[in-house]
């Protein structure tokens, strides 16, 4: 099968079969928002956010019920101090073996050292996807992300969903 997986169709079908209420997928009707780049990546301070539920030793792990909290992970954190907790735990074996699968701090540091990225905004941001309440994403998670990205004076943001 060369085609990409149709996750929305297959998960909707599975939950229907299990007798669950339909999951409300986020579908945007409006055109995408747009802000042109003011600088190239090589000149930019780049904010990074991963939704794999990454945390570092010394931080509290995520929980499974609409956890809208945000962690700031120092970009110098070594890979053996990175941990993951996520509602869909069966996606975590890869990142738990090598955090760079979802929270690629080692690769980002290399790209920064190479000059491919001007600077990685510190800390790198981490939250847990799988929040079912879009209202809580809007009211709790997004303001925290915006505050971090803007206070770090990031020129652009790279977002890595799991």
């Amino acid at each position, binding site marked *: 099968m060369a085609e990409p997986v149709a996750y929305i169709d297959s998960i909707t079908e599975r939950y229907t079969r299990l007798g669950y209420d339909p999951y409300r997928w986020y579908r945007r009707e409006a055109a995408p928002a747009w802000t042109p780049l003011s600088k190239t990546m090589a000149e930019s301070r780049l904010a990074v*956010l991963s939704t794999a539920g990454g945390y570092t030793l010394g931080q509290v792990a995520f929980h499974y019920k609409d956890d809208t909290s945000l962690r700031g992970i120092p970009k110098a954190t070594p890979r053996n101090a990175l941990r993951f907790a996520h509602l869909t735990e069966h996606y975590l074996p890869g990142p738990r073996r090598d955090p760079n699968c979802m929270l690629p701090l080692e690769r980002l540091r290399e790209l920064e050292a190479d000059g491919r990225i001007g600077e990685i905004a510190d800390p790198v941001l981490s939250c847990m996807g799988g929040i079912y309440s879009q209202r809580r994403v809007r009211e709790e998670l997004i303001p925290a992300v915006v505050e971090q990205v803007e206070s770090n004076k990031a020129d652009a943001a790279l977002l890595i969903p799991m």
Partner: protein
Amino acid sequence: MCLIANELEQRGTPTLVLGAALDIMEAGRPPRGAFFDAPLGHTCGAPDAADQQRAILRGALAAFDAITEPGAIVHLPERWKAGDGWKNQASDSTGGDSRQPRDTTPQWQHPADAVAAEGAD
């Protein structure tokens, strides 16, 4: 994630979503996207495949610099090295619910992480 991308973009920060679930990304219409066709949990490449991870991130950065059409999603050329067999299981709609029970206690990867976090918020 596309909700976050559009909100940041609306407020003046350019964004790119690097994702592995194309249909979910298309439904959310991020301002810029890059797609790596891989099992979920491996958006930035396979474990211990540093060269692949580097290529994916370089591809995403190149897309970030290049995209001028709102909503464009670049398909990255990197391939999942073990082939496409994983897609059969990922597309299967007959299984049970693979999610964890919804609970508000911290779900530590290792029990010792709780000790390390004592006193943290």
